[in-house]
């Protein structure tokens, strides 16, 4: 049964990295489309556009982070293998869910906000500061989910 425990943890890690990464990919994609549109008018805005396009990318990093945490926890990489029973494995998997779910949806939502803010800077480049803050409002929930995932992972003991 030990193997099942570890595999459940692996599933958790896969969900975290996969879903949060997908959310970021879609989000960055949405922002990139808007960015390309703006740059057809003014290629000089590349730097600003890139900055805004990168913002929805953090969910993917959070997901990856949680995934690493999860597999470090069960000793798949770096360190001694730990014995994990099914319940502990399930626990690790559940702990990965906050960032998997919130990462996916917030990545997409943040991408849309970034796209809108790219439109904003195309008209008013002097308002870049504000344009960066609005997508960051969305990211809050990914940060909170990451926090919960980490705390949950941390509180599972073997």
């Amino acid at each position, binding site marked *: 049964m030990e193997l099942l425990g570890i595999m459940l943890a692996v599933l958790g890690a896969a969900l975290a990295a996969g879903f949060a990464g997908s959310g970021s990919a879609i989000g960055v994609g949405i922002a990139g489309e808007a960015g390309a549109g703006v740059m057809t008018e003014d290629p000089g805005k590349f730097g600003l556009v890139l900055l805004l396009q990168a913002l929805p990318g953090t969910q993917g990093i959070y997901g990856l982070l949680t995934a690493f945490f999860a597999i470090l926890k069960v000793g798949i990489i770096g360190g001694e293998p730990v014995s994990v029973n099914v319940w502990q494995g399930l626990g690790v998997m559940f702990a990965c869910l906050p960032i998997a779910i919130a990462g996916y949806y917030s990545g997409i939502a943040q991408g849309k906000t970034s796209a809108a803010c790219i439109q904003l800077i195309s008209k008013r480049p002097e308002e870049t500061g504000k344009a960066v803050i609005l997508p960051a409002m969305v990211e*809050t929930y990914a*940060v*909170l989910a990451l926090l919960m995932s980490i705390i949950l992972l941390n509180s599972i003991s073997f």
Partner: protein
Amino acid sequence: MAVLKVKKATVYAHQTVTEDIVAELQRLSNCEVLSLEQQGSDARKEQIARRTKEIEDSSADARFLLRFFEPYYEDGRGVLERLLSDKPPVTLKELEDLLRKTDINEIVEQARKIERRLVELRATLSYLDAKQSILETLEGFPYDLSLISQGTKNITSIFGNIPTEQTERLKLAFENASGDRGELFFGFAGEKAAQVPVVMIFDKSVSADVVEAASSVTLSRVDFPKDLEGTVEDAKKLVVEERKKLLEEETNLKERAKGLSAQWVPTIQRLFDYHEILRKRYEALLQGQTTREVSIIKLWVPENVLETFKNTLKRYEDLIEVALEDPDPAAGDDPPTMLENPKWALPFEPLTRLYGLPPYGGMDPTVPMAPFMFVFLGMCLGDGGYGIVLSMLILWLSSRYKITGDKRNFFNLLFLGSVSTIFFGAITGSWLGDMIDAFGSLAFLRSLKNSVVLLQPMENPLNFLGISLALGVIQVIFGLFLALWENLRKGNYIAAFGDQGGWIALITGLLIFGGFSAGFLGQAAGFAGKVLSLFGVVLLVTTQGREKSGIVSKALSGILSLYNITSYLGDVLSYSRLLALGLATSAVAMIINTLTGLVVGIPYVGVVLAVIIFLGGHVFSIAVNTLGAFIHSLRLQYVEFFSKFYSGGGRAFEPLAYDTKYVQVLTAEAENTP
């Protein structure tokens, strides 16, 4: 931490000196010109408007030249240097001399000539292209090309393209129409081409029949270049030669443009800036009112430059009259906002401007925000190694380039952030993540690292979470106190005690009571907490419905307002991001170190891979996490902190000054040359 006071000044100046005075004010760069109601126009106004028009024309010339030369101009500076360095300094006098010395019309003339010729060349080249592609398809044409292009006394021709599948039909029709008085030649456009070029040469006597025959197929006629003659081979050679000649000329012209741009662009940039300065100056004149003898200009003058302002105008004493409006700005005015902060808070000032300036007479949030921002930046980035790398980078850039203005402020802000980061990295034991523990060769640093560690967020995140939330409580309550103070200052006592006092009492009361329940505080404190929070509730219930009419709706909105406690709860919880981002930085760094450790064992390429992963990973991590730390710290200020006491809405001070794009006008120098 204040918004500078401004005075409204009215200058009545005799027409003979108005231009000088406006120039002086522009040099001062400290006065904002008000736009006055315009009453009709007069000779003087028209004169100024004419002058403005002249300046705009010259400015347009300079703009044309800059646009034309831009692709050819290299100023020999790197990207970083262009981004960070100051604009080259000049004095106004130098600019004036430059304008006198430079014959801009002649440069414009030359540039236009080059531009015209380049356009011609491009047109000719594309004509040559067309010729060449025709010649390619006529490979093997047996006669002189002049037969097609010009014909002879008796012979004429038709040249065009027909769909490939209609060649047979055309052959038949043409033979029928011309008999032995014509000849048909098919060109070759390629194996799979849908169209075939065709030449019909025939005696003029049968031309009506041939035209009829040609109309039986879908022929699209093409104008044959009139100047093609000789054999196809010769003509091709001529085209190649001509193209070579033209390309050479084009290269020469571009070289010339490059030479001219190297010679003139700096000058034109300066002239452009000088025209901008003049334009601003005359615009300011147009904002005022004029009578036959006198111009009236109204200005906002910050109080701290009032003396300089008066001294500057002293020289014209006999010809002007300056009236200062007293007391301070009246109700209908829209005075501008200028921030004045102590030096240590200056790096944080752009953040206030980014959110929106306070209204005139309002509170400047820069100083209250600065310490929090400093701490939050450090907590969010939270890695000593990254802090050191960042601070070194900033120090290196600062020593290499002369950085001023808002860029300087931003760099200072980043530097402060990196100092704070080093501190938090040290007390959490994070140096490029767990680098010191991960690599055996760094073992000698372990005891040093561990000696300053106070918190271990990786092992025990709840402690750090507690600290983050406590900081949140402190900042939120501090924000409420600021609002309370502001309300007291304005005399809104009910708002001060009801809105802010009530919440402060309720929140601190609950916290004290919570401390008692958790067993940290004694019985007496628990009781005090209860009383304080009840007092807060009473205050809120009685005051929050004060704008409603009727006792029932007053009470109801009072009680409903208590629901807002959730928003305070949300605000405080939002500070948990301080832990999350700090953890994320350390964890990303740790993962990079782990990966490095994993690949280093691979034979042959292991070390190379390890170096790439280690360096690349950490550089990426610094970039991503610094951006995140910055944005999220800023968000806490804007959303959680500012919302308690600050709303912005001020208008930025826009003094009449030297607003230049390419150079920086030295005002101090100019002072010596009146």
